[in-house]
């Protein structure tokens, strides 16, 4: 099926199999591999991207459902060679180790702050419960998000 999807500001006209998941479209057709696949049950959130500004696990959507949508992936977050404040906050607070969950975590966290710019620690923890990390124990991820919210 023919679809038109805007990814990080660039329009892509593609012909995809109806069963292609959005995450596979992003990785294999568009060629952006920053979005990772961590599971096959939509449990881990590693593949989170923004669809029309909202965080979505890109394994829960078919590519054809994204026809006409604006997608932002982790590659689209930094602007003009400058990391996004959330990316900086993760770096400054050691909010990542192996980095595999990180793109999804950062995309979920930026979406969280859009909805709730000054969350409590508990709100951050609940807001990120769809994204699994095995390295950090979440301590520094939560700290990173709170720091970003506070503008630190």
């Amino acid at each position, binding site marked *: 099926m023919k679809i038109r999807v805007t990814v990080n500001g660039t329009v892509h006209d593609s012909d995809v199999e109806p069963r292609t998941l959005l995450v596979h479209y992003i990785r294999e057709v568009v060629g952006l*591999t920053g979005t990772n696949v961590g599971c096959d049950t939509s449990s881990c959130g590693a593949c989170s991207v923004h669809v029309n500004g909202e965080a979505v696990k890109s394994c829960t959507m078919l590519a054809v459902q994204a026809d006409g949508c604006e997608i932002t992936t982790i590659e689209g977050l930094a602007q003009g060679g400058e990391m996004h404040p959330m990316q900086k906050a993760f770096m400054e607070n050691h909010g990542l180790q192996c980095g595999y969950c990180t793109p999804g975590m950062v995309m979920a966290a930026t979406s969280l702050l859009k909805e709730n710019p000054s969350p409590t620690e508990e709100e951050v923890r609940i807001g990120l419960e769809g994204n699994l990390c095995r390295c950090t124990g979440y301590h520094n991820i939560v700290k990173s998000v709170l720091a970003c919210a506070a503008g630190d």
Partner: protein
Amino acid sequence: MTDLQERPAGVLGSRLLRREDPALLTGEAKYTNDLNVPGALHLAMVRSPYAHARITSVDLSAALAVPGVVAAYSGADLAGLWAGPMPCAWPVTEDMKNPPHYPVATGTACYVGDGVACVLATSATAARDAAELVDVQYEPMEAVVDLEDALSDRVVIHTDLGTNKSYQWDLKIEGEPGQVDAAFAAAAYTVKERYVQQRLIPVAMEPRAVCAVPQPFGGDMTLYSATQVPHILKVMTALTLGIPEHQMRVVAPSVGGGFGSKLNVYAEELLCVALARKHGAPVRWNETRSENHLATIQGRGQIQHIELAADADGKLTAVRVRLLADMGAYLQLVTPGIPLLGAFLYAGVYDLPLAYDFSCTSVFTTLTPTDAYRGAGRPEATYAIERAMDALADTMGIDPMELRRRNFIRKEQFPYTAMTGLVYDSGDHDAAATKAAELADYDGVRARQAAQNVPGAKKVIGIGQASYFEMCGLAPSRVLASLNYSAGGWEAATVRVLPTNKIQVVTGTAPHGQGHETAWSMIVAEKMGVAPEDVDVLHSDTAIAPLGLDTYGSRSLPVGGVAIAMACDKVIDKAKKIAAHQLEADEADLEFAGGTFSVKGTPDRALPLAAIAFEAFTAHNLPDGMEPNLEAHTTYDPPNFSWPFGTHICTVEVDTETGQVDVLQYVAVDDCGVQVNPLIVEGQVHGGVIQGLAQALFEEAVYDDDGNLKSGTLAEYLVPAASDVPSLTLGHTVTPSPTNQLGVKGIGEAGTIGAAPAVINAVVDALSHLGVRDMPMPASPQNVWAAINAATQGASK
């Protein structure tokens, strides 16, 4: 020994942000699955749906008819590709039983997930579609899922072995014959406990991924793999496939966590290489998460019997341990050695006389093979002794903290020769426990508990402690030899000063989230007097770093990091000779500080390293006979393990009606010696603690009686999310290791080791007034509720 520690405000010990992060944060980093390899064929596995079944036929015809499919193979079709079976590098006893294990099974499938056929296709989807069409006929046999049942040999899994028992390994240490029995006979107090270490699924967030790229006419082979052990994998792939080792190159690109699960040589790695050779094309495979739960090793899996004998004061007089360990269906790379890594630690951090009796019996089951999972044998051992210490304190009617203090190896006893003969390098358990108790407000919680845990209380609180030693820095090669391990424990490093005074470090460690690039650059910066950003760290490619023994067992800093420091010393020695020559001074009169050599007492007669580096490069004016360039290599075989230690204290609130456990506070005081980068140390502790806490409260690989994995996806296996776990309170003490020049010990596994016993001790403590004396892991609401119910019903009878 401690000159680096005492140096003020240096690079070492600073919270330098990680250089790895920008690439990982922006999507620029490439994991194996991200590599763009034109023309690659995709491998898909057909896996047994039965835990134990005879394979009677494999029909590949429907799979071969799928468009895009290039080939399909049964196990028998591939038999000619292997020079030998899959490797087990740790034959722990001479009579250890080790069934032949091939990448694709031929006669019998021995666990759900065992590979029975495979398909190669031009796309991953075609390969998977076709794999579903492979028609395998099975004759199911009885599964063996229970360890005690396995030991009975009621059903023998590998019939050629004639038994399910793989080995028995004994360690009995007595000052005089019969001392253990005598100690138990004479003891004022004894406890006899049975604990179950449930199987755990490691769940590194990046599933395994493999890509083998051949050069069909040159004969060279490059294997990209999401592995912790590129060097071990290179040797083992060469041996198993009969490839000359110098033609085999292994690269671990960015690797998304390991926790021991990528410390292995897996069927799919061997298959990709073998099929890439056969087809003269790249072959790649990406594991799905569901496959990961079935076909990547699992951790723990032990039944532990531990007995303590103590005198009237509670001083331990003997420890007896009987382990029954689950190997799973086959022995993977280091499967049999894992329970034995704990063999030396069942006396914990306590001053035990020569009265120690340990025996481990290991059995095969029809389940996924077990192997190293974060801590590997040491969390299990620490759990048993720390739970048993609480049981002993309960028996004696004294506070468990007090019992521990009576038994700690005291600071002045270090270096301490343990009853096992191992020498504990340095420690101060009392200081760590005191600091943890302060941070946890131990006395305050006890007071609150006395007020809150009254008969009929719905919510009750408990506080639990675990004090631990982590035997890490694996390992002195001769000690490994005495344990029958097939390799050494050294680590290699090269330090190379480039003409413009930028420094390249080549390390044999293979990081997968630990931040070695940052940490190693700090060590070099400190030693050489350059900025960390002027140091490049090369690793994880056997063509660039040909020598190394990789990353596991908290070994990278105390072995690999120390090797780098030693290589720096060699470079400085050479540079000093050049400086002396150039300055026309005696070497003995030179000192090196801040990257500059100067004549003592005459600071204006000085030469910076930058100038020497360029001189070494031009070689225009070097001392007679000196080789050009500034480069040194070191291979460091550590003289001892390192012994990080600490005390963790957990406070919980338990809902007696629902069984829900809430962690109110978690305090970890860890001592890993000198900290190179506290930011990274804290991160390691955070992650380790939550993994240990997850074993205590959430995780279990659940099998049914037929050997089906009931927790086969992340929808059923409870890896905790941020909302499931608490923030952590960390403290530390610093007791440098005297066995290496950096004073470092390692920190990768400490959190996992301390957490499970601290949490379960807290849960049992919360419920002790109801008569609960033990709690199975995970302490899920159901298990907690059942334990309360059993105790209170028992009391009412």
